[in-house]
């Protein structure tokens, strides 16, 4: 009997519990909604929300890219050369002798080789097949400070190149790269040339010491992005002379030098390049509105904004076609970050990216060429909401425009500055309505 009672109660409770999955009554009756808010768009000109624009350069150095650039009279002015140091030559290799036994051979003979240069076919500005030169450097250079005129430019010492442009270089050979045929150019080396960079570790005579290789472009009017360089050695084994080996020598240093160095913009904003440029400016987020009439009709003006009323906020920038030699050839990832301590500029620490993806706002390269003057928006909604919500801090906040990956490329992106007809503006979409009242 007890079991029956328990079962009865359990069934009753189960029925009650079955309805515990809540589904609220939802109606589309407008009478059940409070008075509709107004959504309106506002555009604030530069003078109403920003000031103190400044462009800073010098962030990062070319070797941080891990890629090289070669150019000759690109757009009539840009010359660039890539410098590379190869790693130590292999001292041994695992080979099979004539009996098929696997052994380590410490007596290798290098009888030829190739330097293979790989290019970014998308980011390279190249009208057709081009000829490149491979030379050997005898001047010591510092990978982090080498420039077109200086081989070493450190606090401890400065050494200029004997010839501007990382020269002189002892020309070894040339190669032709046809971008329609592939992504690499091959410099063929004879047995003597193949050993050239082996000596850089052993020769102590400063006049003959080898300090890496220099890649330069002989065909004018092109700018190539070099993604990688490798030295491949044709090797003969002492254990089995019939076995042909190809051993790859990696690189230890890779950088590039170029001229001319771009000058800071007189009016405008700039991001990217290497060393990279950043544009910094102060922002006064509007917190009180007295227009437009549609908004004031819904709420009493002046209305003090709260963060939830800002449904969208974006910086509106206009792309600018500037120096063609440094014009982007691939898409640009534009980032915007708050500057924590503007007094420490240009070395002020930056906050996290305001771009939701963290990968920057991608802008097509054509916007900085044929698309000159195109408006692009950089959403900063959450930051504006946070500024409005933070009532503890008054005064302007400082933002920095920069490349999402810095440095990223020799090219940089330019935008029209505050003194131009295409001055930046702040676009906001505001939603506001009467207070939700008790019924």
């Amino acid at each position, binding site marked *: 009997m007890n079991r029956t009672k328990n079962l009865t109660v359990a069934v009753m409770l189960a029925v009650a519990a079955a309805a515990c999955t809540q589904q609220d*009554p939802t109606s589309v009756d407008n009478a059940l909604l409070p008075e509709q808010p107004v959504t309106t768009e506002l555009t604030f000109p530069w003078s109403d929300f920003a000031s103190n624009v400044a462009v800073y350069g010098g962030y990062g150095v070319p070797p941080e890219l891990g890629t090289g650039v070669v150019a000759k009279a690109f757009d009539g002015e840009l010359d660039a050369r890539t410098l590379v140091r190869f790693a130590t030559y292999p001292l041994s290799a695992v080979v099979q002798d004539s009996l098929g036994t696997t052994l380590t051979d410490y007596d290798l003979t290098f009888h030829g080789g190739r330097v293979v240069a790989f290019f970014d076919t998308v980011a390279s500005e190249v009208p057709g097949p081009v000829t490149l030169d491979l030379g050997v450097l005898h001047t010591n250079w510092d990978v982090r400070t080498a420039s077109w005129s200086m081989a070493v430019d450190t606090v401890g010492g400065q050494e200029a190149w004997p010839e501007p442009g990382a020269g002189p270089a002892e020309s070894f050979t040339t190669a032709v790269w046809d971008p329609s045929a592939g992504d690499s150019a091959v410099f063929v080396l004879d047995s003597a040339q193949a050993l050239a960079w082996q000596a850089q570790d052993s020769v102590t005579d400063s006049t003959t010491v080898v300090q890496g290789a220099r890649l330069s472009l002989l065909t004018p009017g092109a700018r190539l992005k070099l993604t990688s360089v490798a030295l491949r050695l044709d090797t003969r084994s002492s254990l089995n002379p019939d076995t042909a080996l190809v051993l790859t020598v990696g690189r230890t240093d890779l950088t590039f030098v170029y001229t001319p160095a771009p000058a800071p913009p007189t009016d405008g904003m700039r991001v990217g390049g290497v060393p990279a440029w950043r544009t910094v400016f102060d922002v006064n987020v509007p917190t009180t509105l007295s227009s437009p009439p549609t908004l004031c009709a819904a709420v009493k003006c002046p209305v003090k904004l709260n963060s939830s009323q800002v449904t969208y906020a974006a910086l509106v920038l206009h792309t600018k076609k500037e120096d063609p030699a440094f014009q982007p050839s691939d898409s640009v990832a534009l980032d915007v970050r708050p500057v924590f301590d503007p007094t420490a500029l240009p070395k002020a620490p930056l906050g996290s990216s305001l771009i939701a993806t963290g990968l920057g706002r991608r802008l097509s390269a054509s916007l900085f060429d044929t698309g000159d003057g195109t408006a692009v928006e950089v959403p900063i909604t959450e930051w504006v909401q946070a500024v409005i919500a933070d009532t503890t801090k008054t005064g302007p906040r400082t933002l920095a425009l920069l490349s999402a990956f810095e440095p990223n490329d020799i090219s940089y992106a330019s935008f029209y500055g505050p003194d131009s007809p295409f001055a930046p503006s702040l676009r906001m979409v505001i939603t506001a309505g009467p207070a*939700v009242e*008790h019924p």
Partner: protein
Amino acid sequence: MRFRRTLFVLALMAAKPTLGGAQSILSGAGLGIPVDAVDARSRALGGVGIGLQGEAILPGDPAASARLVMGTVMMTAEPSWVSYGRSDTNESGSFRGTRFPLVGVAYPAFGVGVITFSFESVLDQRYSAANGVTVNVADKLLAATDSFTSTGGVSQVRLGFARALNRSVSVGISVGRYGGSLVRRFTRTFNDSIASGSLGQFQDGGYWTYTGTEVTAGASADLGNVAHLAASGTWSGNLEAKASSDTKGSSASYALPFQLRLGATGVLAPGLALNVGLTRADWSRTDKGLSEGRSAGSTLTWGGGIELSRARLLGRSAPLRFGYRHADLPFSLTGSKPVETAWTGGLGLVLRQAQTLTHEALTQASVDLSFERGKRTDGPISESFKRMSLTLRLTGF
């Protein structure tokens, strides 16, 4: 066994009435839809919670607990399934939910009467509404959804005292304190994006807490063994809705009506009783505190049913009940007079019974179950609902 029962009692006492799930779209009208804090037995009899024979913890009938001889605890759960429609917009939908309208404890004290303590739901204000809109931003029409949720309602905690004056007359009084809260939140969600980014959500809303006082007094009388009569009245002070400091909306105050309840049970034949009851309240005075466009009217709720008390199930007493109820609802969404009607039925099941020292049967544990099938109408709005009430009662702790 005693330990388990004590645990169960503690669990019941820890519970409080909640509006866990709204049960009508009319919850959006005025101050919401009134929740009858009655047990399943009253529901099954179509009654209004007054004038039933026997002892009970019924907030509307404070004298009903006067003859409880041992500590008693009870809890009622009400799951319901609702489908609704609008004849003017062809809108339809369904929802379901469970609420716990009444938790009560009674304890004989000092030999002079019975002290009662109860938690009750008073007004259900839980609902949501949504509507698709088009917003013009920068000469571009963007699709958006406006949605509104109202969560919460008015509840009450009540302390009462009941006393049997003689073998036939009992009186009771209780003092209640309104409580509960309401969260109202409006959200506009943009379904379209502009330019390089999506639009964020706009939210606005408020939070109010309720306070107020009410007093209920009542009396009941047995006319021999053939009839039982009861009446009670509830006076309420203003219901104050206090807005939180970060709520832009203002606080509000509402006058609540005096409620008069009358009920009676007559024995038609051995084991067959008829119960009838009515409640009258004039909510029009509440009208003044409501937002523009909301209105309230006077209400009359009446109902009745028969109880076959000699029915048995599983070898134990299991009274069968049938009834009908008609209730005017105080607040309307459409300006018409909303009404709720329902056919009711149910049964009770005694789980454990003992004998008192005077050899009278004492129910120590029981379950009452009721089923209702009814409808609500408010102009073009109609709802049909199925509602179950389940009351668990323990005595003798």
